[in-house]
């Protein structure tokens, strides 16, 4: 091929065939995620140079066939229908699993595009007693075949070196392909494999031994609970340090700007609007990154598939599926990436229910709110000598969120009508030792997509809220504005007063009303708003905020923040849909306004009712 051309090479293959490893090895760090126009789905693009030929290498999500069953798979095959067509398809196959891997290959082979076949995971194949005759396979298929080890990188250079050379269209006859003739395709694959592979006696894989424990009726669940405990323990413990650094960094930056900028509205917009907004997003990155590190570790090693396997039966009764486990767990960090991870759920109803209930899982933005409120109302005492009461209440909030999500799922199961039955036909990949590079990549890319998705919305909302909190109408002249001396006379304060009659039954006054409004940027803004209302400079000083809030009294002399009000607030924050970024993502993922609106309404109703009950029980 000519040296001046930009070659477009597409990587394709089944899930779990080592495609990402090969992509990472071929491109190194020269990769970026591109949004496919009109969709929210992302393709990975890497630009490499081979013998002076520039090559655009596109990685596609793994799929089993040309007939996509999920959004992920839809994206994988779309690229083969685009113009210009890919110049070469680099097909990666799991050698231990060649028959099924060649099914998708056979479908691609009909496209008339030159192909290269890369055999990966030969070590597992050898272990299973399968030997592949590479030369014979090349002859039968009429294309180049390579043997690589995606883990060590062995053989990858040979593949890379030949990418700029002429490649061939497979000439093997796989027979006709339509839905009712998959048998015929498998028959021809069998004939091909009979000529090109030798099956010797196989040994039992370690994988099968691990599965005896991982899927055991008792040990399996204990192992899963243990893993969960470890993950959340590390998320909270490890994330604390970087979160502190980020907060300190931003406050130094604000102080610096405060010193160098000229006083005026622009300065306040930058410092109190923009920078506060950005800080509110970035501060959650450590928790989210750590949680995603563990999630991709569990997925990469193959354990997550087992969790789906043992949870499927239980979740099915609730209108979910085993595949809902990953989104629900991710929801404990942030609903945005969690909702995006529902794309591999094939059944629309299963996927929709998962999307609808995931925001009820207690995300990291609720944590600062819970921490402040618990410290106000719950005594710091020990229960039964070992458990800290405040910690127990915090744990209870997490349990409450999970239970609410599961119950809401049952509700949606009855409401949403869908004729196509859900199914759970899923490969349980063999266990791997972690491929660290892949894990870091996934972790980095997911955190980045959080910053982008949440960042856009939060930034806009924080600027709007800053305006509402800083300006108010001039007395007697409602159409001109002036800077508000304090929150009470600002637009936000006015709104707070307007909604006060509505929130009075659940124990909230107009000050809390303001916090409810500002929380739309992100729930943790509650803490910042409280410190503004009670005029505390240092937002991080929980003790100060707490003490001022505690001293606030009603006309009758009773404290505003009674136990009933505090508990009511906690319930409200647990259930209410106060996150504009999540609604935006739900809109994108369901491609309709209907679902985010329903989600907003049902969660608000749930919050209001819950708070109403709790407030009346405790006061």
């Amino acid at each position, binding site marked *: 091929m000519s040296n001046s051309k930009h070659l477009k090479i597409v990587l394709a293959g089944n899930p779990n065939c080592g495609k990402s490893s090969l992509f990472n090895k071929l491109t190194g760090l020269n990769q970026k995620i591109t949004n496919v126009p009109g969709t929210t789905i992302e393709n990975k693009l890497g630009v490499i140079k081979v013998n002076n030929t520039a090559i655009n290498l596109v990685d596609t999500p793994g799929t089993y066939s040309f007939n996509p069953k999920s959004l992920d798979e839809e994206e994988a095959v779309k690229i083969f229908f685009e113009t210009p067509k890919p110049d070469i398809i680099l097909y990666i196959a799991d050698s231990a699993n060649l028959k099924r891997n060649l*099914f998708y290959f056979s479908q691609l082979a009909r496209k008339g595009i030159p192909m290269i076949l890369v055999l990966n995971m030969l070590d597992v194949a050898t272990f299973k007693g399968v030997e592949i005759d590479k030369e014979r396979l090349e002859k039968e298929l009429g294309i180049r075949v390579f043997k690589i080890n995606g883990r060590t990188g062995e053989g990858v250079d040979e593949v890379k070196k030949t990418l700029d050379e002429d490649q061939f269209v497979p000439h093997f006859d796989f027979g006709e392909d339509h839905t009712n003739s998959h048998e015929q395709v498998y028959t021809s694959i069998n004939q091909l494999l009979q000529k090109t592979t030798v099956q010797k006696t196989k040994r039992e894989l370690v994988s099968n031994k691990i599965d005896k424990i991982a899927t055991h009726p008792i040990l399996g669940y204990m192992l899963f609970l243990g893993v969960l405990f470890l993950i959340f323990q590390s998320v909270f413990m490890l994330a604390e340090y970087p979160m502190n650094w980020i907060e300190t960094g931003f406050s130094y930056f604000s102080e610096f700007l405060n010193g160098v900028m000229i006083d005026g509205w622009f300065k306040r917009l930058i410092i109190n609007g923009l920078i506060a907004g950005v800080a509110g997003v970035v501060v959650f990155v450590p928790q989210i990154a750590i949680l995603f590190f563990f999630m991709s570790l569990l997925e990469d090693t193959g354990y997550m598939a087992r969790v789906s396997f043992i949870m499927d*039966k239980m979740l099915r009764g609730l209108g979910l599926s085993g595949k809902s486990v990953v989104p629900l767990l991710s929801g404990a960090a942030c609903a945005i990436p969690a909702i995006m991870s529902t794309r591999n759920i094939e059944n629309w109803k299963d996927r929709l229910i998962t999307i609808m209930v995931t925001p009820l899982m207690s995300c990291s933005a609720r944590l600062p709110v819970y921490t402040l409120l618990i410290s106000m109302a719950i005594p710091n005492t020990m229960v039964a000598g070992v458990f800290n009461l405040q910690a127990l209440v915090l744990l209870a909030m997490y349990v409450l969120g999970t239970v609410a999500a599961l119950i809401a799922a049952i509700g949606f199961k009855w409401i949403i009508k869908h004729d196509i039955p859900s199914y759970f036909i899923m490969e349980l990949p063999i266990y791997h030792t972690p491929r660290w590079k892949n894990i870091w990549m996934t972790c980095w890319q997911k955190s980045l997509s959080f910053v982008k998705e949440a960042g856009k919305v939060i930034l806009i909302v924080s600027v709007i809220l800053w305006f509402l909190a800083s300006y108010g109408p001039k007395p007697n002249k409602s159409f001109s504005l002036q800077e508000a001396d304090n929150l009470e006379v600002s637009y936000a304060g006015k709104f707070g007063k307007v909604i006060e009659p509505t929130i009075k039954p659940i124990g909230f006054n107009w000050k809390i009303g303001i916090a409810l409004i500002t929380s739309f940027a992100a729930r943790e803004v509650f803490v910042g708003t409280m410190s503004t209302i009670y005029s505390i400079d240092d937002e991080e000083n929980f003790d100060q905020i707490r003490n001022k809030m505690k001293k606030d009294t009603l006309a009758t002399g009773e404290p505003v923040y009674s136990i009933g009000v505090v508990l009511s607030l906690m319930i409200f924050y647990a259930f209410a849909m106060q996150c504009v970024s999540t609604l935006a993502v739900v809109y994108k993922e369901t491609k309709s306004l209907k679902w985010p609106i329903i989600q907003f309404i049902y969660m608000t109703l749930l919050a209001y009712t819950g708070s109403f009950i709790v407030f009346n029980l405790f006061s």
Partner: protein
Amino acid sequence: MTLDELNIGQLARIQQVLDSPFKEKLQEMGCVPGVLIQPIFKAPFGDPIAYDIEGYTLSIRKSEAKNITVKPLDDLFKT
């Protein structure tokens, strides 16, 4: 006999994949007539079931396994 009725470890040959919305998916995953399949372990509560098929492990719900008819290999020897 359908696939969900096999005991753990019982080797069988797939005879037919009945019509269902997930027939295509089953076929793509290698469940086609003539193929050997063997249940290797079950999830707690007995559902879904993991099968060894074509050298990899496939998880299928009981309700889906009902759509695949099989002939156990020991039966072949009896008849």
